[in-house]
């Protein structure tokens, strides 16, 4: 399954960059697949679906462009934005056929085709004396172009999966934070953040006793709050995953391979 794309103009839309970067996903009441919704006849529906996909895939796409296409940070960002803008404009993602494979694989093939076209276009401009040049090499500390070794395709795929997981988890954390804000569950999120998010990076994870003392609550409440937050976090990740996969089978397969989770 592949995706043929024509070289697109370098689309820059103000709405692409920096808007609502930390806004959590608003989950629809039902688990309607946004992968299928990108085919919708309604342009608003289509844009909303693509918006959700961008939130989930922007970071993996960006990192993939950096690793495979050896784009520097600014160039990778431009390419990622250009890709999603072109996908919206030309309706590429609507061509995905769920029965032929995973959406993630399809998206990567579209991205490769798009990046290849952009590289060719950039080279043509360079040869023709155009005013725009697009560096795809990484620059070293002195600003000199530096060749990077070609990455192994399996590593690229694994890297993309890992970034995707990171993106999903990050969105779920944001969504959970929003859900808890201003409610009685704020303390549950604070404990989750302290123990499971910050604690994983700290040299020593705080003990439940320390957390209980910090929040002036009994130890049992720390356990209960953490249990609730983890359960909600898990449900949120799976909700997001269900939303950005095209079928129940794909959802289950992705949940297993990417997160190691068999969803209920």
């Amino acid at each position: 399954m592949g995706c043929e794309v024509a070289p697109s103009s370098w689309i820059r839309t103000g709405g692409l960059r920096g808007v609502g970067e930390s806004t959590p996903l608003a989950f629809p009441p039902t688990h309607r697949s946004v992968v299928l919704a990108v085919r919708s006849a309604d342009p608003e529906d289509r844009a909303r679906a693509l918006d959700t996909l961008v939130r989930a895939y922007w970071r993996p796409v960006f990192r993939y462009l950096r690793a495979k296409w050896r784009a520097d940070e600014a160039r990778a960002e431009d390419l990622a934005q250009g890709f999603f803008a072109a996908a919206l404009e030309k309706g590429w993602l609507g061509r995905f056929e769920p029965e032929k494979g995973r959406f993630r694989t399809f998206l990567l093939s579209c991205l490769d085709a798009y990046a290849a076209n952009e590289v060719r276009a950039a080279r043509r401009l360079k040869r023709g004396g155009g005013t725009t040049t697009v560096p795809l090499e990484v620059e070293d500390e002195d600003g000199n172009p530096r060749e990077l070794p070609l990455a192994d395709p399996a590593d690229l795929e694994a890297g993309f999966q890992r970034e995707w997981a990171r993106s999903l988890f990050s969105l779920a954390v944001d969504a959970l934070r929003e859900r808890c804000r201003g409610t009685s569950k704020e303390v549950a999120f604070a404990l989750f953040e302290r123990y499971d998010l910050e604690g994983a990076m700290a040299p020593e994870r705080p003990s439940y006793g320390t957390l209980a003392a910090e929040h002036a609550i009994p130890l049992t409440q720390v356990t209960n709050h953490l249990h609730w937050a983890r359960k909600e976090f898990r449900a949120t990740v799976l909700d997001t995953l269900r939303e950005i996969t095209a079928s129940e089978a794909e959802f289950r397969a992705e949940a297993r391979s990417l997160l190691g989770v068999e969803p209920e």
Partner: protein
Amino acid sequence: MTRGGGGTELSDSTLDHLRRVMDFPDLSGTRYELRHELDRGGMGVVYAARDRELERDVALKVLATAVADAEAAERLRREAQIIAGLEHPGIVPVHDVGALPDGRVFYAMKLVGGQRLDVFVRAGPPLAEQLRVFLRVCEPVAFAHAHGVIHRDLKPENVMVGPFGEVLVMDWGVAKRLTETKAGDERLASTPERTASAAPTSTGPVSHGTAHGTILGTPAWMAPEQARGEVDRLDARADVYALGAILYFLLTGRAPRGEDVAEAATTRVPRPLEAICAKALAADPGGRYANAAELAGDVALFLEGAAVSAFPEGPWRKALRFASRHRAPLMLVAAYIIMRVFMLLFFRV
């Protein structure tokens, strides 16, 4: 359209931790309270938990989320049933079996302390002590054989030695009732349980299809017929081979790799013991002990200094063993004879 990825930056370590957290069993609505993870295998994850009703610590084996489907669930239930049917001090008792709110099957069992056999032998206990532990490994396996069950994944990592010398044979996840049909066994064996586990290694359990059947177990400790996937041929002698491999490990410090015990051992191994090991490890099942009880019987005879079935003795060796076994009375007799000779020579008595 917005740029994605969420606002929260998660490090690799946080990502890994969250993945683990997502896998934690949801014990709400059960009598158990989760403590911490103990061990993780291809099929399930074992957690330490607290049974609130009986106020005791237990171990919970929960189906790993990555393999949790109907067939894997059936396999775990079956494992619990097999263990529950084998009430023996050397087999961890199962207390309860059930399903978590997320649908994953689990069973609760006694929380076992102590250390694995491979860790236990690192301290270098005397051979006699190691052999006594080996006999206690054979006992529950012999009990299972007597009840028509074979373990199929015996190895030092699946044996726990408790602080008071108690020995428990663990992980009956690929055990088989000998009355079960091949079809049923293969259906269960072909579940993602083992294929989803780590890539086959010399120590990790594997499952993969062959021309004859499905391989279940751990290659380094597996009988040849088991390694060939000859499901129909497997019987108690497959476990005898694995027990022989454990004995080989106790004598040499490593799993069998085609060398004789004498070649692999760094210290001298008594020849009867060498013969017992060789018989248990015979490539042809017909050349092995019929079951774990027979093997244990020979090892027990060796410990007592008696003749073992695996090592036919000539008259000279029989005499030596007799002398060695009855050293004290023979010395008394010898002393008496010397004294009589002395008295005869000097006192003419």
